[in-house]
């Protein structure tokens, strides 16, 4: 999953300027160029992440899905750089959206810190729909339900996994 967002495209601003989520160029940007979403191959939906002496399951419940169409895409990162660039998730997957809540379970996750990004591609067009200013028109979310507006940082969204863990992520 690739939610393209350079470091200054989405900042934790407050309500009005939440507006401004994206980097505006001098000329009107094409929305799709700002929030292009790239499908990654499904590596795993429920299955073993890795074999480890200290492995745990993550049960992820995704709620507040407002449209029962399209696909929910999620990806999991174990370091800040890959989280930012979205280049090398440790695992990524997708689920068809048929209910307001979706559960995904990951098995045998090695102990460590992880951050999760989600995006609801409600119209299955392969990218996050945005408005003229690049603001998302489709749902997205982060582990820890981090951030108030725009992408949350790795620091805010990371969770430590040492044992079987249940988390709830609310899509915005």
């Amino acid at each position, binding site marked *: 999953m690739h939610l393209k967002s350079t470091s200054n495209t989405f*900042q934790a601003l407050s*309500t*009005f*300027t939440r*507006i401004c989520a994206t980097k505006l160029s001098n000329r009107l940007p094409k929305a799709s160029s700002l929030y292009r979403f790239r499908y990654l191959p499904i590596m795993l939906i429920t299955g073993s992440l890795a074999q480890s002496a200290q492995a745990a399951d993550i049960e992820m419940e995704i709620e507040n899905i407002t449209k029962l169409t399209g696909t929910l895409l999620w990806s999991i990162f174990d370091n800040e750089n890959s989280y930012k660039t979205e280049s090398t998730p440790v695992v990524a997957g997708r689920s068809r959206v048929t209910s307001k809540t979706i559960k995904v379970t990951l098995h045998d996750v090695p102990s460590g810190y992880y951050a999760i990004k989600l995006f609801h591609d409600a119209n299955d067009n392969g990218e996050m729909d945005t408005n003229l*200013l690049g603001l998302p028109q489709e749902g997205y979310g982060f582990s820890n*339900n981090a951030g108030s507006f725009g992408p949350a940082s790795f620091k805010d969204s990371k969770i430590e996994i040492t044992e079987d863990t249940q988390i709830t992520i609310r899509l*915005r």
Partner: protein
Amino acid sequence: MQSTHTNTATLKPKIMKRRDFTKTLLGGSAAILLNPVLTSASSNTSTAPWSVAFNGVTADLAELDLTVQGDIPEACYGTLYRNGPALFEREGQRYSHWFDPDGMIQAFQISEKGISHHGRFVRTEKFKREEDAGRFLFDGAGSKIEGSFPSRNNDDGNVANTNIQPFQGELLALWEGGSAHRVDPDTLETLGKKDWRDDLRGVPFSAHPRFDDRSDMWNIGSLPMPDNPALVLYHIGKGGDLKKVQVHRLGFGGYQHDFVLTPNYLIALNSSAVAHHGERFVDMFQWEADRPSQLMVFDKNNLSLVKTIEVPPAFVFHFGNAWESRGKIIFTASQYKDAQFMKHGMARLAKQQKGPYHQESALLRYTIDLNKGTAEIDKLSESLEFPGFDRRYPFAEQSLLGISESLGRPRSMQSIITQVNPESGQEQHYDYGEDIIVEEPQFISDGSSVMGRGFIMHTYLNYKTERTGTAILKSGALADGPVAMAEMDRCLPLGFHGCFLSASN
């Protein structure tokens, strides 16, 4: 750059004597309806005596007749619509800034039968979600909500609480951070968001669209983000067709609320209240006393930037009308010394605290010489907010209406209706006395085509009796006092802006 401050008119308001029937209406009701809650509130030294003006309401308001005194001119038959922050509290959590409560449309229907009122909340997505949840879910522009949810985009926090204006047979309930909402003029039901184009959903659209002499609509959308501030300009045909939209990047993100429209130009003021990183919208703005503000002059034909003119640091919520004469552009602005009213005064009001509110807004006249790139600035009036005019003539030099503070009664609220001649600065006033808080006045034509000839209608709150009313004065004869007043046993929260739609249209 040349800019001068010349005080051409510093006329102090003459405090006019009320007409006898006004005394009867206000004084009589005051004697009967003193409120014990208000009495106890008044004994609290930190609570403003007009705290009832910010209690808010919690449900739609059914039709209620007002008691009318005086004669309502036939020209005033129609509906006065107003919008304003109304839902201040849910589940024990209260907003702490006047920007934040959800908007409610108030309709005062005026006919030969009298005047009746009803009110209805704008059903924004935010309102509906919070109504379902039974609590606030999102932070406000100036309020922190415990356990708030992150936002997907601007419209998650859209409260549609700032203005209500007619467009294409419907009403638009306007905010400034996101989409406008369509409202049914009769039932006040919310009909959905007004999407000018798919990719404009949730893009800021100011609460002060202006209409030219062809009834085309023009507007700005301000994006004062610290790193990439921008301004969106809109030109919308009277049929609702989006003629042009343009985004301009700005050098800094000054707060912008309204703009100026002339026959050939759209002028925006990039104020010296500049956005920096901050937790909430209002917190972000810092007054930069050493940073000149910018008048950005755009060509209406293609929405391109023609010139940027630096002016002394300015903070303006509202502009009057504008005209062009002998190669110059002239407009008026209700200008504050700084951003303290927005940052602190509006928070104190919402928290029902005593002043100071820092709401001193003087009426200034800007005269722009585009060739020289200069602006001369004169002060026309010491105190005037909510400038209004005969909107049939948006580009003509004409008198301005507004509300004024009660000079000589510091830390009070506006109780005076004012009319100012933009050339001489000569003023007329009517002062309702300190129990009354007056709200934005509307000009109503007497049916003739004579500019400025007609009536001035406004709402008011008598905070002592906790009764909201409407009053009608004759334009140009404010000293005579109201020709009609009407009150109801209902206390509405103070609102922001509205419009009058004549029954004869």
